[in-house]
């Protein structure tokens, strides 16, 4: 299945782009996607804490819904999903 990932703020720079299209096997969870994307020590350290849990200040949206109010990192991904990885917002 194909999904789209969007990166904002500092994550845009850390992940090297605003948007990426990714081809995944069916049955992938948000957690699996993050593992795939965080392919360096620096990225893992930004996104996960030492025990491997998603850091509090990172927000993951799936199709504009907070995954925190779905099943968290165990939210399942589906064909055509748009996943957004957000640092804390800082409006003007």
């Amino acid at each position, binding site marked *: 299945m194909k999904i789209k990932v969007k990166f904002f*703020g500092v994550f845009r720079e850390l992940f090297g782009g605003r948007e990426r299209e990714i081809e995944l096997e069916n049955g992938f969870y948000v957690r699996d996607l993050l593992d795939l994307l965080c392919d360096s020590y620096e990225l893992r350290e930004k996104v996960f804490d030492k025990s491997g849990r998603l850091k509090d200040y990172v927000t993951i949206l799936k199709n504009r819904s907070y995954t925190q109010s779905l099943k968290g990192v165990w939210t399942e991904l589906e064909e055509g999903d748009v996943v957004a990885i957000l640092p804390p917002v800082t409006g003007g």
Partner: protein
Amino acid sequence: MLDSGIYNKGEMDMPSVDDLLSELPKDSGAIMTFIGVVKEVGKDDKKVIGLEIESYDEYANFTIKNICDEIKEKYGLSLAKIYHFKGSFKVGEPLVLVIVAGRHRKQTFPALQEAIERYKKELAVWKKEFYVDGSEEWIGG
């Protein structure tokens, strides 16, 4: 007046007092506005030369509409608008414009306050500061 939302810097003309007045229902006695402007002093008191504002447009527009609708309802306002700009800004340039109008300042005061606190906390918008010393930093990142 344009719909509330995220606009590119310069894309929208700032409304004048006459624009505002011409759009108000007749039971409006108080109009309050907030303009957020790029300050010279940034994070850790570093001297700022400019800012970049980035937005998750679709999501932020959805949130802005929600905030305006909810505040209008809650305080019985005749008008509630939030315009947040994005792009590259110099010190002294406007970043945000909030407008509320209602029968009495007893409504518009808490409404303006709540509109500001909510957009600051909820809008999918990010700010990067550029400093006089050549460094730069994403705030909150």
